[in-house]
């Protein structure tokens, strides 16, 4: 029991929670934006992998870190364009297209990586983002090291959640996006072009996903390996439902999952030998599914999610 309290009261845990949550926040916000406009984007897992690879590769070849993030975002946007082409223009199955994008983007990342980076015993590394101390706040006892010594993308992710919440709920653009996700024909009848809205959301959302991936190679770690996204994309898809399609709840959901993950990791070291560590690895997923089951019952799914929009058809 004491060990658990020790873990909970260590600033290291809370710093780790924010770090673990960052890619999830980006990914969840991206998936959320796509779904608000009515497009499920299961390409997320592959887009995150590609973002991780291309961002790292850019920096490895001499670009600075923010350029790496930008290049990752652009690559995500391109995959988003591909997904939108299939699902919006051609009206194909969003599941199939999304999984296709994931499979393609994942393998393509590894292909490019292998093509351009020589095989080595230890993977090559870059100089990753360094934590920034928020002036004034980082010197606070406990809270300083826990919450205010993160790398810049983490702060960006948190700010972005609030910006996106504002856009979706407080601006005419957000209303147009929500209307498109609820009933694209109604949006069209009000003079909004649902096709443009969907393209925009899928491209921008996919760019966010790729930034989430790039965080892994440019901040959390400093090298790329092909399996590093490790299902984070799928977690994001579940977090969108958990969040009832609200960016602020997405932020909470990502933090909650990250907390479970950081907690179990530290629990492993304390309780090693007593319980096989694989049990701890399951904890975040089990708790997430439980939380999802509780939260999602009240969720209001965008009514036109996964429904292709064809002009003049009802």
């Amino acid at each position, binding site marked *: 029991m004491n060990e658990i309290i020790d873990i909970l009261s260590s600033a290291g845990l809370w710093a780790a929670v924010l770090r673990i949550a960052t890619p999830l926040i980006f990914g969840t916000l991206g998936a959320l934006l796509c779904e608000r406009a009515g497009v499920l984007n299961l390409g997320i897992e592959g887009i995150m992998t590609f973002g991780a690879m291309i961002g790292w590769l850019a920096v490895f070849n001499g670009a600075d870190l923010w350029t790496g993030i930008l290049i990752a975002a652009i690559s995500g946007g391109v995959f988003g364009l591909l997904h939108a082409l299939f699902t919006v223009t051609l009206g194909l199955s969003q599941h199939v297209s999304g999984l296709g994008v994931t499979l393609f983007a994942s393998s393509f990342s590894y292909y490019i990586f292998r093509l351009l980076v020589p095989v080595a015993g230890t993977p090559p590394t870059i100089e990753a983002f360094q934590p920034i101390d928020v002036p004034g706040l980082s010197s606070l006892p406990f809270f300083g090291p826990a919450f205010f010594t993160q790398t810049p993308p983490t702060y960006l992710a948190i700010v972005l959640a609030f910006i996106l919440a504002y856009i979706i709920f407080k601006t005419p653009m957000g209303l147009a996006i929500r*209307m498109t996700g*609820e009933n694209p024909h109604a949006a069209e009848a009000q*003079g*909004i072009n649902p096709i443009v809205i969907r393209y925009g959301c899928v491209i921008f959302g996919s760019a966010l996903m790729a930034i989430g991936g790039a965080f892994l190679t440019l901040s959390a770690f400093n090298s790329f390996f092909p399996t590093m996204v490790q299902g984070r994309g799928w977690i994001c898809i579940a977090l969108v439902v958990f969040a009832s399609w609200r960016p602020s709840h997405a932020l909470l959901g990502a933090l909650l999952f990250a907390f479970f993950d950081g907690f179990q990791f530290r629990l492993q070291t304390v309780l090693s030998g007593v319980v096989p560590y694989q049990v701890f690895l399951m904890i975040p997923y089990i708790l997430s599914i439980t939380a999802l089951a509780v939260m999602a019952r009240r969720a209001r799914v965008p009514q036109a999610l996964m429904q292709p929009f064809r002009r*003049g058809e*009802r």
Partner: protein
Amino acid sequence: MTENALEISGVSKRFGDNLANDNISLSLAKGEIVALLGENGAGKTTLMNILFGHYVPDSGKVSVMGAELPQGKPREAIRAGIGMVHQHFSLAPNLTVLENVITGTQGIWSLATDTKSARKKLIEISKRFGLIVDPDARLGDLSVGEQQRVEILKALYNDAQILVLDEPTAVLTNIEAEQMFSTLKDMAKQGLSLIFISHKLDEVMATADRIFVLRGGKSVAERLVGDTNKSELAELMVGREVKRPVREASKPGNVILNASGVSVVKDGVERLKQADFHVREGEVLGIIGVSGNGQATLAQLLSGTAKRSKGSIALFGDEVGDLSVPDVVELGIGRIPEDRNHEGVIGEMAIWENAILERISEFSKNGLVDRTAGVKFADEVINAFDVRGATPTKRIRLLSGGNMQKLILGRNLLKQPKLLLAAQPARGLDEGAVAAVHERILNARKDGTGVILISEDLDEVLALADRIQAIVGGQLSPSVSAKDADARKMGLMMSGEWDDQEVGDEV
């Protein structure tokens, strides 16, 4: 006359082989209500979609207040002051009323939605036209009538001067429909111009100033409402004289269904209260009432999808327990469900599959579906019931409402059921199809089938039923013989005023 608010001249539109609009011209003056009358498929909706910029016409033009409207641009149509109220509402159930109304009305790049002034404007409009609705209610929580109000408000919010309503009463109850038409008349008095599309003669005669009749894509007649009558309009609309079938006298046989003191509780609410009713062979029992008064529950009870909490039911002389759907099929009870698209057919499946679905074991061989037999049965139904535009392998959603209903009737009646449960069988059908459906029901009666007809259409019940019971708040009135029933008496009964002593037919 001053300049017309709207002028459609020489509009044609072709879809493949189908000439949906053939050189149609139409005008609308300020403050006028024009009805566009026609059967399903006459081209009414196509014309309105052209007007609103959803379709680009092959030829012809649309002018508003004398200025020609650019084609195929809904945004321009809105700007010119045309507001469209769609038959299937263009609304988002998860958004609030206010959000539904103001979507797209403010610059998409503005940094904040101006909800304050939008709310003020919405409330003003809703007061001015008597369209009262809570701006902050979630749309999905509103009744269908209220949702339609929102749809109209949306058009008015965009400063519509010309309002186009596509079959506005298709989804409304009678009372809601009456309210809506009185609102529309008020609007016309305030200077709005209205076009409404309909195939219902009563509402057209009661509401419109001028009537355009469309048939087969052509404009066949234009009449002032004072210069015409229902039977002329019906003939113009269908292209031949339509006669609703007449009920012949008959001698009902034995009682086949007798329910006494039946109550049904659903979700903690008593939907059916101590209902007594019976049906004889060769007799039509009409259950009349405004929707939502328990008739859906009554239909579910007899279809085996709801269980009674009290009372007894005897079928064909024997007391029965709780019925399941297979029991109902087994017992030979035919059913025409109220919502044919959701409960009657599976749209994406073939007509032959829909025809045999509830009797699939009769159409099975060695555990496999006997497609040959199914297609043959479907062919029989199609021929015997004149289901137009149908082949057994076509998907059923491609049929019109009337033909779909004929197929549902056919799959039930071809097997000569002892009892037929018909819930709102003619709802949403056009004049020709209504006559066909009524004729089939009366034929079944002649062949000895007992029919329970659930309807909110007075004319329908008076035309078909031998005895009539009203349903109000889950309670059934005693039955009244059709020869003693008239519209006034029925109206009173539908509002819950009946004489407990009056019994038309003792068991």
